[in-house]
């Protein structure tokens, strides 16, 4: 079965997820529909002198509540990604243990040595200058392999037996969507019949938090963590950093049907458009956001009126939500579909967000239910949209969901997720 452009349909046959609400897609999804918040006070490191002291951290199973700095970002990314991939493969029942018959596309944050590593090297060298740390690092191949950009992808590829060179992508907050798009295109091109697309992030460490703080991007509503993330709400004051991962098993639709797989839904369209306006802000005309949304809908061969729900980027920064609303109005006119932001509950999982939100969009179609935007107290008069306030909503006949991802550096990627073709 081909799409309107003569390309193979791309089916989703497995979903895996780790969020601040739990390890596992079923648990995360149930708690998202219940309107639970996964945002809490950070327990991983001292919080003195920090403007923001809350996040959606994910503890590893062996960590005490709140965690510690013993695990670096690349280790957390790898662990969460591996869990999500294993869960997605188990649902898809594809391949055999350690032998996945397709490619791996990994969306992940840039990684680098962190302060615990620098301190350890400086201690070993009895001096803190780089030449001293380099001398102390000699022979520490583990340090090299952990912090190489290609290290995580290689270890995941080896563990799951994916085929070909793993591709690691970063497009800031659109990373997870880019990983999915890269996988979808490989299947549409006929390069592979199956692929894993995973987005993962585990960046809650002091320097990353401070860097976002210095850009005034984070909410400082520290006193009530669960109420801090307020996408589309009048008093929103920034996003809340969070961690997590989601993986999709993507397959050529006919190949999936032929092996008797259960089809959860389709990635029917992908659209992107870069913005050349500013490093952190969208062009006020919204052209790139509007272009990315329109490209995704057109790529899927549907009309805007057929989109029944939008899983928004909805970070909760004053700027993003305003621009996203502008894009909604431009594309959908006077009667836009409902839009909600699960970031109100799990925060902004950064490199994972596009993948987690694509997964949530597919589950909305499967279960015919829209997750809420919690913490919606007072609407922003400049964002008059149906944001599915505070309570999940049961729906009927939902077939097409748009998932938006917009990132620093002018990165805009939108996905159109659809119900399986009617038999």
């Amino acid at each position: 079965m081909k799409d309107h452009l003569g390309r193979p349909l791309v089916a989703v046959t497995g979903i895996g997820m780790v969020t601040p609400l739990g390890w596992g897609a079923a648990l995360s999804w149930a708690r998202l529909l219940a309107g639970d918040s996964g945002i809490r006070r950070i327990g991983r490191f001292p919080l003195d002198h920090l403007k923001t002291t809350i996040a959606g951290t994910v503890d590893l199973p062996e960590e005490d509540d709140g965690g510690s700095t013993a695990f670096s970002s690349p280790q957390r990314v790898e662990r969460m990604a591996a869990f999500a991939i294993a869960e997605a493969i188990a649902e898809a029942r594809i391949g055999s243990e350690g032998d996945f018959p397709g490619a791996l596309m990994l969306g992940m944050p840039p990684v680098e040595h962190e302060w615990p590593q620098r301190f350890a090297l400086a201690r070993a060298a009895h001096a803190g200058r780089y030449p001293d740390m380099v001398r102390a690092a000699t022979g520490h191949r583990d340090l090299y392999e952990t912090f190489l950009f290609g290290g995580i992808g290689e270890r995941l590829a080896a563990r799951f037996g994916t085929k070909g060179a793993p591709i690691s992508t970063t497009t800031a907050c659109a990373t997870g969507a880019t990983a999915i798009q890269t996988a979808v295109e490989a299947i549409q091109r006929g390069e592979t019949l199956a692929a894993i697309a995973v987005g993962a992030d585990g960046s809650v460490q002091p320097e990353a938090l401070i860097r976002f703080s210095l850009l005034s991007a984070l909410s400082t509503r520290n006193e009530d963590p669960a109420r801090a993330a307020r996408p589309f709400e009048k008093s929103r004051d920034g996003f809340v950093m969070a961690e997590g991962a989601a993986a999709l098993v993507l397959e050529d639709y006919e190949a999936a049907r032929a092996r008797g797989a259960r089809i959860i839904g389709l990635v029917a369209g992908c659209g992107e458009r870069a913005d050349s306006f500013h490093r952190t802000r969208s062009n006020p005309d919204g052209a790139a956001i509007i272009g990315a949304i329109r490209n995704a809908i057109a790529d899927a061969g549907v009309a805007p009126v057929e989109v029944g729900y939008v899983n928004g980027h909805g970070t909760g920064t004053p700027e993003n939500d305003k621009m996203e609303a502008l894009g909604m109005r431009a594309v959908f006119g006077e009667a836009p579909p409902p839009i909600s932001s699960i970031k109100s509950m799990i925060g902004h999982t950064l490199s994972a967000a596009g993948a987690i939100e694509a997964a949530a969009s597919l589950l909305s179609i499967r279960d015919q239910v829209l997750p809420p935007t919690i913490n919606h107290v007072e609407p922003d008069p400049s964002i008059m949209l149906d944001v599915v306030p505070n309570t999940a909503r049961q729906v009927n006949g939902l077939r097409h969901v748009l998932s938006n991802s917009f990132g620093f550096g002018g990165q805009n990627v939108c996905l159109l997720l659809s119900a399986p073709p009617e038999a």
Partner: protein
Amino acid sequence: MNREIWITGIGLVTSLGEGRAAHWQALNAGATPVVDTETFAPYPVHPLPVLNLDAQIPRKGDQRQMEPWQRLGTYAAGLAIDDAGARGLVADMHLIVAAGGGERDVTVDEAIATELADRPETESGPILNERLANGLRPTLFLAQLSNLLAGNISIVHGVTGSSRTFMGEESAAADAIRIAHARLAEGRGEIALVGGAFAAQRWDMVLLYAPGGALWQGAPVPVSERAGGGAVLGAMSAFLVLEHAEHARARGVRGIAKLSGVATDASRRAGPGDAAASATGLLAKLPIAAGALGVLSGDSGAAVQADEARFLAALPDAVTRRPGTLIGHGTEASFPAHVALAATAIGEGGFYPVLDPADTVSRAAPRQILVTGFGIFRGEALALVEPAI
């Protein structure tokens, strides 16, 4: 669909200079390596030449928003767009960047490490927060962020068709070129910009790569004489403008070379010969003709060169050149730089003279040039270029 794709623009900066004409001349004139053995001793580097940044990044405000790595890549990307005469085509030009890590503020890092390394975390943690909050420039984050090289190319040059950034050292660049080529070949767009940059003169890069045992120490010798002893990091950036041949013809532009194919894989490297077998497997994916074959080897001097030697030994009629002896190893920029050098030779209708003592003694100018890339950690890649007719 499998449309013909040309390389219509090259932006190349290495320690030997900038631009394809300068590299063609330098390599044919018996250039000697430009090396700095002092600054990062015991590790030598091939330094960047002086760049007139204003020529490609006219706004000082933009230059201030970047660190050297992003400036270098943005500069080379601009050279490629100019070389292709494609300034008017940037709005719908697609972009894939192979990115490394951004720069650290070395002064801040050293001061904090010196002050706090010996204290327990309960004591150092609060002070670390304070030092970072007061010591980091707010703009450094963006000047550091891996996807912001692509972001700056969009902002400075207006490239907005799409924008993706791949990570993963050498193989990220090979896959960036492979996918940019495949997307154009199947009709997703008409023109794309793809490449990478590597700012070698950075202590944080030395700290990342030195523990892997992959860096050469002391005065450099030719790559073929290093017995796997390591790479010499080379500052470089290479961007290619890829274009559907019909699109180029329609606007009266001749291709520098045709990019006939790109193939990549990543063996687990569980044993000697695995990487060679992986690369050999890729040969079947490329339309290699019978007869003399130019080979532009990505030999870096690191451990994997035994596999690369094994791979090369099995290629009949290969005329092999090892530019790594002259320009060093540029991680994400290496494979694009070697494709750029191969395309340049095709465009000039010739090939390079012997660059390394192990190079094939021959004055042949093969019609096809195979570019090889073996990642120091992982990844095997091949690209094939030939005349654009």
